[in-house]
């Protein structure tokens, strides 16, 4: 899976989780920029991504997801 395709699939997951139809993902996007992205919905997001992309995160990796860019990096390292 290349990056544009990954971002495409992530965008679908993000929009569904946060109920934001016009949400656009950028590397710098953080929880502060999105309504409803808090510690509760974050965990739902994580499990949706795991289901959607068929990967498993580690707890340690969770702490490193400071923004969407870091999240994509971690995912990329898992699917390749």
């Amino acid at each position, binding site marked *: 899976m290349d990056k544009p395709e990954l971002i495409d699939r992530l965008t679908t997951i993000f929009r569904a989780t946060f109920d934001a139809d016009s949400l656009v993902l950028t590397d710098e996007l953080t929880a502060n920029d999105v*309504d409803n992205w808090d510690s509760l919905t974050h965990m*739902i997001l994580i499990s949706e991504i795991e289901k959607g992309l068929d990967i498993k995160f580690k707890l340690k990796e969770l*702490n490193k997801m400071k923004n969407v860019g870091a999240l994509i990096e971690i995912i990329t390292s898992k699917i390749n």
Partner: protein
Amino acid sequence: MVFTSLNFLLFFPAVILLFYITPIKYRWATLLIASYFFYLNIEPVFGLLTAIITLSTYFFTRLIDKVNDDKTKSKYMYLNIAIVLLPLFFFKYFTAINDGIFNILDLYEIRWVLPKITFLLPVGISFYTFMAIGYTIDVYNEEVEAEKNIGIVALFISFFPLILSGPIERAKNMIPQFKSDLKLNPANFSIGLKLMLWGYFMKLVVADRLAIYVDAVYGNLAHHNGDTILFTSLLYPIQVYADLGGYSLIAIGVSKILGLDVMHNFNRPFFATSMAEFWRRWHMSLITWLTDYVYTPLAFSFRRYGVSGIVLALMVTFVLSGVWHGATLNFVVWGVLQGVFLSIEALMNKRKTKMENRYSLKSNFLYVAFSIGLTYFLFSISQVFGRAVTFEDSIIVFEKVILERGSLFLDKTTLAYASIGIFMLLLSDFRDEYFPKKMLLFNNKHFVIRLGSYLCVALLILWIGILNGGQFIYFKF
């Protein structure tokens, strides 16, 4: 010694002076000595606890850093957490457990042969225990490196502005600062003094004054009617905010003067429009700590159960937070209640967002005011369990509030002084919330206005702050 004692007002300038004459390289050591002096001054034995926690944490974090095998690392982490928690359990929960056993045996008419032992709870133990645990987990998660200088670790755990009641800081923020060149500079000095001044105002003018009234009512629930108790319960959150918030501001101000940036603990909590938002503004250092070290690991391991997993993690976290406040049934209920409020909100969130968007409610003044009021009201309900001494008392509060009408018990003088403070505090928060950087007083660009506002606040503290035991409600008149 506490911040509001005369001792502290002599101690702090002495520390600044010592700090100033110490070579920059060793200033951390001055702070360490000052911190131990500050803490031992309360009770010399308590120093042993901080020392043991420091040694154990230092030793195990170094080990975690050295070994490569993840299993061994986690074993060391858990071992240290257990050791660090031991004193907290012993001092905070021993009495509760002992009492429990005592009462159960008593039911069967067996008299407990050991005498009932009560220990003096070492002040601040819950705070520095959490800081040490946070540091250990951070080292395990490779968020920070294990500090090689044991003096710095000791300072992190015993740093005097934070040791008594937080903010619960993180190694990642504090340790690099302790190791950097610590300097006194006028800008920090001025910011720090302003924070302290406002902190003292919150604590002495608002919190301690309100406490007189709240204690008079809650200390004598049987003799007050439901309306009075309702009124008091609605005032109580303001007392807690002014108390812990004020104390935190003093701590942050003291640190700032010494050139250290400490996280803020409250962010105008009473303007939150939902419980979730409230908990992002209230006692933030505790909540972020719990989020990072309790909630996230729990929610992560429950994540395949979806929303119910999250609700479960939330409940466990808040019950734990309740028990951290005190080992009583009341605090367990307090925690459960927070968990319930937040869970309901989380479950309704999608529908709520849709409704808000459809009617563009978020810009509707009435809707916002209603949400703020509702949030405050829900928090007040939960705080009944935080204030009443026993669970039975909490039940009496709700019974009376629902069933018993009567005229308000108004101690006019106490409430008049309190309302001056409350008005100023809420007005200041209101300005910062809705008109940030406007109508500034402490930070006005004209020196005269700044000076005038410092003088007003300082005079108010002096003239109507609670500076001694002379203010009490004389019950009869």
